[in-house]
Structures are given as structure tokens and as C-alpha cells.
């Protein structure tokens, strides 16, 4: 998928930035990709101010909160990003996007991806993974959501009854599990 011809700015495609994950793996990524991560961008720009010569692969940016498996997926997502930021303007497009989101990963994956994207301040990714996770529980029953995330209900029976009463309007017509 990493087709350099898709890069809108080929001159910068040669510049590489090295990222170091929590499990000490090194990733050499194109600058254009790395700059999607605002946390990295900020770090990089601060570094650049200090030492212009440090620009490039000699700089290793540590990402102590991101595991290599997660970073690999973030990078591949980044490369697949469409060039235009156009919002899906028709129903069909929205359906395709929804399908894509649904197949993207397990809930555990998505939780990890959201955490990492949040830490890296990777806006497009954050939006996509959040929406993907939200899609999974959209209009599902309480029991389904608990099973989905492996959560045990910890309410007292009277408490749960009270909350369900309060939200009774929402319990009409939820999807079958």
C-alpha cells in the first residue's frame, strides 16, 4: 500500500524519521507520515529549533506509550488515508465507510488504537477508530455491551433498576444480540 507516487509532496518523501516504541523497536517512517502524528510533529519541531542538523534519521523520537504492534497499524492506516478530506457526501459512500470500519479490528485492537492515536494526537485516526468502536455498540443492549467488552455489571439490583428506569426511553427497539 505504500505507494510513494501518492505522496502529494514527493520532495519530502525521502526524509525519514525514526520512532522508538515502548518495546524498543525502531520504525523508520516517511516524514509525511510521521507529521500526521501531532505529538511527533511537535517533538520534531522542538528538536529542529535546537539543532537544524539533527533533522532526519539521526533523530530518534521515543514513544514510550505506544507498542510496536499498534504503531505498525497506525502507520499502515496513515498511508491508506485518502488525500482529500472530503466528508462522505452520499449514502453509498457512508455505507462503504461503515463496512470498512466494521472490519477494522477487534474491540481490544480498537481500544489500543484509540489510546495510541490519542497520545500521538493523530486526528484522522482517532476519529476513525472512535467511530469504529462506536459502531460496534450502536443500538445494542446493555448485556451485549457488557459481553463485548468483558465488563461485569457492578450495580446493586435496585440501582440498576433505577438507572434503567431513568433511561427507559432508550430501551425501545434495541438490536437483537
Amino acid at each position, binding site marked *: 500500500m505504500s505507494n510513494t507516487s501518492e505522496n502529494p509532496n514527493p520532495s519530502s518523501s525521502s526524509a525519514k524519521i525514526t520512532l522508538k516504541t515502548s518495546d524498543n523497536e525502531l520504525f523508520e517512517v516517511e516524514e509525511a507520515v510521521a507529521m500526521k502524528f501531532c505529538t511527533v510533529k511537535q517533538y520534531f519541531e522542538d528538536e529542529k529549533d535546537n539543532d537544524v542538523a539533527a533533522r532526519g534519521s539521526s533523530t530518534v523520537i521515543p514513544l514510550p506509550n505506544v507498542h510496536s504492534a499498534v504503531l505498525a497499524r497506525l502507520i499502515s492506516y496513515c498511508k491508506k488515508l485518502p488525500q482529500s478530506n472530503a466528508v462522505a457526501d452520499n449514502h453509498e459512500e457512508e455505507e462503504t465507510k461503515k463496512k470498512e470500519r466494521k472490519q477494522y479490528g477487534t*474491540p*481490544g485492537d480498537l*481500544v489500543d488504537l484509540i489510546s495510541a492515536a*490519542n497520545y500521538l494526537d493523530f486526528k484522522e485516526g482517532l476519529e476513525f477508530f472512535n467511530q469504529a468502536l462506536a459502531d460496534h455498540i450502536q443500538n445494542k443492549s446493555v448485556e451485549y455491551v457488557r459481553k463485548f467488552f*468483558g*465488563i461485569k455489571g457492578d450495580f446493586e439490583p435496585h440501582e440498576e433498576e433505577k438507572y434503567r428506569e431513568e433511561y427507559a*426511553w432508550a430501551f425501545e427497539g434495541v438490536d437483537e444480540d
Partner: protein
Amino acid sequence: MSLNFPITTPPWEVLALVAHYLDPKTLAIASCVCKSWFISMSSDHLWKPICNTHFPNLHFTDLGEQVRHVPYHRLYAIGHAAAKRRVQTPCKPKLSLNDLVFSINIRTKSSNIVTIAKPGEELIFDPNEVFKFDVDNVNYECSSMAAALQDVKITWNVVLSGWKGVFTMMNCEGKVSFSPGAEGWFSEELPSPGCCSGTVASGVVADLTLGFCSRRESGVGKVKVDKVSVGILSIVNWRYVSVDDGLRYLQHFLVPCDD
């Protein structure tokens, strides 16, 4: 789900992020998952913008004290109930056409012209399933009275079978010409149903059409009432109301409320 590894509960910061992507309904259900989710998913921080978008007029900050203690998720529930009340779909009518007999009487000052009594099941339904029925086989003969308009009195009653109730749909006077090809159209506003005050208009009228044709076999000077149709017409859009709406209207007057 066939996940081989145990999934850990999403950390609160992930919940807080995802919460912004949930629609109000899912957010409400998510609030009932467990204690920590209730805190994340029911916060004013999430529900305030939702309330302001969906029900901006429910958010009166100038009332201060009185509304300050209503959490926004509850305010949303109130707004939701209010909106639903407006589009409430009425329940199925308890009456059916088979319970009813339509009786129609047309007379002039001096004589009775025609009296028709038709059980509901013998009425001819309109293909659009509206409350408009043709009454066939009227077959009533009367003398043609040239082109002169005659004063007539029209009464249309709906009788609940077994004489358990009668409602007068129309009791009006009008003019009609007893000549071949002539048509007479009569309408009268119906009273407002239920307990509403008289100032609330019902918005519906009873409507009745008569048609005459010549009758060759009987010789010159005779016409036949060959077409009678009755219906309930909405004056909001000048369309006939649906059969169910018509029955629900009649139900107000013919069946005592039992709740």
C-alpha cells in the same frame, strides 16, 4: 464473539473519547453498563451539547435555580418524551365497520324521497382506503321535477349495531335538482371529538354526494337516485381521512371511554 484473549475493560480516557461518537440512545444504554460507565456516559459535559442541539428551547439558563439541578441526560429524556408525544401514533380503533350501520335519509318539505340503511360490511370501499364509501343499489325512483332546484333535508346517521349508540354525521338542508345527470353535494362540519373545548375545531366535515340518472323503462318524467356516497373529509388538506381515522373519530361518540 470468538476472541481468544480476554478483552480488558476500556480505560476511562478511551471511554471519554468514544462517548462523543455515540448517539443519544446508545449513550443512554451505555450508562447502564456499570458504575464507571454511568459516570462517563451520563455526564453533563456530554449531554449538554446534545440537549442544546436537539432541544435548544429546553435549556433555560435564565431560570437559574429551578433547572440547575436537572442533569442534562434527564432533560434530554424530557425533551424526547415531549417530541414523541407530538408524533404519537394512535392505537387501532376499537370499532370496526362491521359494527356500524349507515342510515341516510333524504326528504323534501312535503315527502320522503329515500331512506337507505346499509350495514358497514356492505359498503363499497374506496381503493385508497379512505373513509369514503359508495352506497350501491339505491334504486330509488322519483318524479323528475324539471330543472327547478328543490329544497331538501339530508340526514346521515351512523348506528352502532344493536342500537347501542347513534351519531348524527349530517343533518342539513340544501338544494338539489331532480333531473337526469344532476348531482348534489352536501357537507357539514363535524363536532370536535373528546373533551376538548368547543373552540378547538374538529377539522373534519361529513360529506355526501347524490347522483341522479334518467330511468328509461319508467317512461318520461322519472329519475332515479343512482349514486350516494358518504365520507369524512379533512378540511386541513381537503382529503378524505383514512378508514382508521374515521373509525377513531366515531369511536369517541359511539363507544364510552373505559379508561
